[in-house]
């Protein structure tokens, strides 16, 4: 032996396998958070919200519901932009810039890399959604007075959680595509699938309208393959009116999204592991 070996013996003890995952997640989080574009987007969200208040108070008086609607839509939109654009660059950039050489020549597996990248971006999206959400809650409280603050907070929390659930899916989709496709193509793929998930039942209707059995079959297959985001949006609508959806519906959606995310990450890990880095 050389007498200069470190405390590494090549074996990874139980919790140690998550150390690289966490390192990569933290690095990804830092990279995204230190990007100035992010702050431009957040500023944009704040402006939209404030604009919403001004318009809201001019046209419908004190209609808080419209304010909430606009605010939440802005958060969902900005969060989506971050997830899609950062996500599609996530793995691609590491390959393009060859920083991946420095990772895969260390004892790191494909799944650790992919999971780390995904968690890092999800953390970033979480912070952004939370920050924009806090701003929205502040604005709404300021506009409506502090009456029913706790109720307001609970309702907004639920709305934001559902938005975040959807963004988890979008991020996984973008991450998956970024392992084998260029960012432009990945953005197109991700947006197409995300949008299709929102069409929900309309896909069925569309299929019937075409009166073509092949197309109608195809569209219904797509419907069954994608998470029902239209359903998610409906639940959010109910929440706005104070109706809380049944626990079964929520459990189903959460399970579905997580299973889907898991599948996408496993595929992404397989692609990453098999790839050659020339």
């Amino acid at each position: 032996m050389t007498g200069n070996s470190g405390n590494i013996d090549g074996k990874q003890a139980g919790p140690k396998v998550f150390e690289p995952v966490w390192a990569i997640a933290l690095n990804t989080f830092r990279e995204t958070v230190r990007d100035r574009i992010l702050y431009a987007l957040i500023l944009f969200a704040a402006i939209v919200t404030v604009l919403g208040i001004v318009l809201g108070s001019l046209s419908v008086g004190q209609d808080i519901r419209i304010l909430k609607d606009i605010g939440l839509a802005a958060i969902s939109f900005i969060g989506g932009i971050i997830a899609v654009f950062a996500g599609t660059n996530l793995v691609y950039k590491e390959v393009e810039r060859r920083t991946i050489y420095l990772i895969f020549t260390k004892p790191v597996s494909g799944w650790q890399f992919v999971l780390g990248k995904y968690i890092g971006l999800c953390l970033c999206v979480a912070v952004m959604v939370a920050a924009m959400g806090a701003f929205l809650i502040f604005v709404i409280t300021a506009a409506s007075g502090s009456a029913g603050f706790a109720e307001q907070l609970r309702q907004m929390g639920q709305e934001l959680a559902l938005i975040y659930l959807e963004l988890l899916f979008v991020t996984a989709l973008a991450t998956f595509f970024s392992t084998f496709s260029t960012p432009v193509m990945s953005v197109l793929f991700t947006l197409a699938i995300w949008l299709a998930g929102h069409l929900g039942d309309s896909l069925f209707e569309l299929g019937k309208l075409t009166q073509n059995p092949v197309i109608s079959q195809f569209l219904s297959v797509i419907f069954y393959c994608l998470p029902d985001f239209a359903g998610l949006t409906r639940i959010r609508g109910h929440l706005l009116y104070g109706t809380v959806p049944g626990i079964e519906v929520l459990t189903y959606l959460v399970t579905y999204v997580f299973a889907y995310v898991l599948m996408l990450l496993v595929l992404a890990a397989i692609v990453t592991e098999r790839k050659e880095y020339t």
Partner: protein
Amino acid sequence: MADVVIQATNLSKELTSSLLRRKVRILSGLNLQVARGETFGLIGPNGAGKTTSIKLMLGLMRPTEGAAEILGMPAGDKKALAQLGYLPENPYFYSHLTGREFLDFAGQLFGIEKKERSERAQELTKLVGLTEAADTQMRKYSKGMLQRLGIAQSLINRPQLIFWDEPMSGLDPIGRKDVRQILFHLKEKGTTIFFNSHLLPDVNEVCDRVGVMNRGQLIVQEDVKNISQGGSYKDLEDFFLEVIAKAEAGGQARS
């Protein structure tokens, strides 16, 4: 050889150029053994296949034929990777991180404890002369500073075997001298060193053995002692030029 650390057997790589669907052989039949504690220098013209050889040994590329074994394990095995250090050619890092943050990140990938990591980062930035720039973001680093950080990160796990792809490139004369000293220091500790370089005087000074590569083939292996003391060559450069000239002439005669 008693303790073989690097073993390449008929290691070959073909790439398919996507346009013409033609196969290009960029490495053919590399047979090589490097013993523990040895310093091996791979030299050869641009495009000879030096970087390719290293990438195959690390498992970044997969061979079309043949195999490489590192520390007795197949190339790319995680247990082997845990014990080696790699400096890529023209290293590029995360521009948003500071040098110290990157070293910490590299240490985490090896599963090194936090306290140990920060001690090693301190020690290594000093070793490569980056103490003052340790807390500057890498976007503000010069080429030579990136190269120095690359060297530092390749030593974070105290490897018993290092692969350095052109460690002296982009360095000023002081940097080159520093790197030579680091190499001597590692040699003393018994580290096995595999590197390639175009700076033949440096190779001559630190290596035990050199291999000359040309057009994807390892054409000669020789102890540095024999080259300098044999009397037939003025220096390593003389040897190199002659060997390549002979290979090229032979290649033309054949084709």
